[in-house]
């Protein structure tokens, strides 16, 4: 078990730079999730940590050892691949033993460790099967088992659940979380699914275009995003953004007028003072709408999604890229095509600079 630290890690392919100076600290025993849209560099970063991609510049330590240019096998990491990468010509037992055998571990020792891992993962009944005779979930478990027996300092998971169906995905998610508790190991987990990120992570790292947008605890990212991108990426359904203009600033509040909501003015508490007339975006999560909020407005609803406990009302307009989403909890549901009176508390609104996307706190 060990902590992981990246300092100004850079990855270049020829002249193209794909990872731009990443600084990151993952504490011992943390479950850290890399999220971001496809192509954001999260897998590349993971493979750099694994040593499968050369790190072009910067430093990387695991448990205080500098492993920047070390061979993958000597880093003390184990990886679970998206495609599982099970050796098709070996049985489950052979798959799990292979790394230890290569490392010259004694036979009885291998058997002990593999059996222990098999028990943890409930794989005892499948040990003599080959991968093609296993279901997707079982293969996943073997891949994890193969990682466990090596007792790595850091576990790496590369979108391990994306090949599973929805039900299995939830199940495995829980199991991996349980495993993390049981092993107490440092784990780094790559996914593009922010639900996985929110539910599993101690720490989420949001990546975009090879840069870290924000890293922190899930709740921090959810409630206190640093920028428009993180705010929009974390949370489902996504946060609503309203274009607005700062009309005046007084007493630590910026008054923002929102044309989309009939020109209402929202006073948002800020410490740094935006200029008057500055274009801003105001972010509001769907669950922050409440009928008796301080700010009132009306929306035309075109679609209602009823999920049983909650419903989501969608209000599109030609000017928007995304519909405004309102979460409804009460029994009273508006009609599709009807008008819905909404309200919210200005303290739950977040303010962003339209141009840079930076959060105005």
């Amino acid at each position, binding site marked *: 078990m060990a902590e992981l630290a990246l300092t100004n890690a850079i990855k270049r392919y020829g002249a193209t730079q794909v990872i731009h100076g990443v600084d990151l600290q993952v504490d011992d025993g943390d479950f850290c999730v890399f999220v971001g849209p496809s192509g954001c560099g999260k897998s590349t970063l993971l493979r750099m940590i694994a040593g499968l991609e050369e790190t072009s510049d910067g430093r990387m330590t695991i448990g205080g050892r500098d492993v920047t240019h070390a061979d*993958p096998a000597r880093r003390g990491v184990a990886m679970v691949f998206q495609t*599982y990468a099970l050796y098709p010509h070996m049985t489950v037992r052979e798959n799990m033993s292979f790394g230890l055998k290569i490392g010259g571990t004694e036979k009885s020792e291998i058997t002990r460790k593999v059996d222990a891992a098999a028990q943890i993962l409930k794989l005892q009944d499948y040990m003599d099967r080959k991968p093609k005779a296993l279901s997707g979930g079982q293969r996943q478990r073997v891949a994890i088992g193969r990682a466990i027996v090596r007792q790595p300092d850091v576990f790496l998971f590369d979108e391990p659940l994306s090949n599973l169906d929805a039900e299995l995905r939830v199940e495995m998610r829980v199991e991996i979380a349980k495993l993390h508790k049981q092993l107490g190991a440092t784990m780094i987990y790559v996914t593009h699914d922010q639900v996985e990120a929110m539910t599993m992570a101690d720490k989420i790292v949001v990546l975009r275009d090879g840069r870290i947008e924000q890293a922190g605890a899930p709740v921090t990212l959810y409630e206190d995003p640093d920028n428009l991108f993180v705010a929009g990426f974390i949370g489902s359904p996504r946060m609503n953004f309203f274009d607005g203009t700062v009309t005046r600033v007084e007493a630590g509040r910026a008054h923002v007028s929102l044309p989309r909501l009939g020109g209402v003015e929202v006073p948002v508490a800020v410490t740094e003072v935006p200029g008057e007339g500055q274009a801003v975006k105001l972010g509001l999560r769907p669950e922050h709408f409440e009928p008796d909020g301080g700010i009132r407005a009306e929306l035309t609803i075109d679609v209602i999604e009823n999920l049983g406990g909650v419903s989501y009302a969608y209000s599109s307009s030609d000017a928007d890229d995304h519909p405004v989403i309102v979460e409804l909890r009460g029994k009273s549901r508006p009609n599709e095509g009807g008008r819905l009176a909404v309200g919210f508390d200005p303290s739950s609104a977040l303010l962003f600079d339209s141009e840079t996307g930076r959060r105005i706190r």
Partner: protein
Amino acid sequence: MRARLSLYWFTVPALLVIGLFFIHPILLTWNMSLTNFAGIGEAKDVGWRNYERIFTRDRYLQEIWLTLWYTVIVVSALTVTGLFFAAMLHRLPLIRNFSRAALYTPAMMSFVVVGYIWQFLYSPLNGGINVALRDLGLGAWEQNWLGDPALALYSVAFTQIWMFTGFTCAIFLAGFAGIPEEIGEAGRLEGATSWQRFRYLELPLLGPSITVSVMLTTIGTLKTFELPFILTKGGPDGATRLLSIDIIDNLFGQYKFGFASALSIVMLVIVLVVAFLQNKVLRDRENA
């Protein structure tokens, strides 16, 4: 079901061409092998006499063994060299395409040209190899490459191996490309060295490529006659007289077409048997 069977119409053009220009001639060859045909004129039926002669004389049995031995040398060496280069180039993407094309070049030359190039390289007096050894101060290693009966077969085999290493290398590289990259990466993370990854992960997964390569090179080598014909004509004193060389000698040196046809049929049977056994063994191994 009828719709499916009608699919067989698709085989008609190929079967026509093969049947007319390949299978039919083979049947004629079979007929010829029961005669004393001289390549021209009338043929007289001699029954099984040609076959009798083949199987009662040591000479032909020895030639069959020599042919099989030659094939074993060439095929195993080709498999090893092809695997070696493929495994190396698989790990070196920077020079992979260039090297693959370069290695393939000898296989694109004609046998006759290759034969004469090596005739000049192997020449005992001023041949390229001996002169090079002399220049490198290794004069003691000079050999009478084609003249020494103990060496000639291996010299000829070496030329054939040189010519087709690029061929097997290309097949194996294709096999490597078919192994998912993650398998090798998983192996690296588990601490397997380059050699261990090759031995335990890639080699077992190359099964189908090995089957294809071994089958193709075996069939090609069993039938080969061009290089030994040009390099040694079966000499010195019979040391490289493969079955195919004797077929050519009987056909065109002595005009014994009937007998040569019988030898050819024997060779055909050998090729089929070897190919069948190989296919079975290799496929079983793959599926194990």
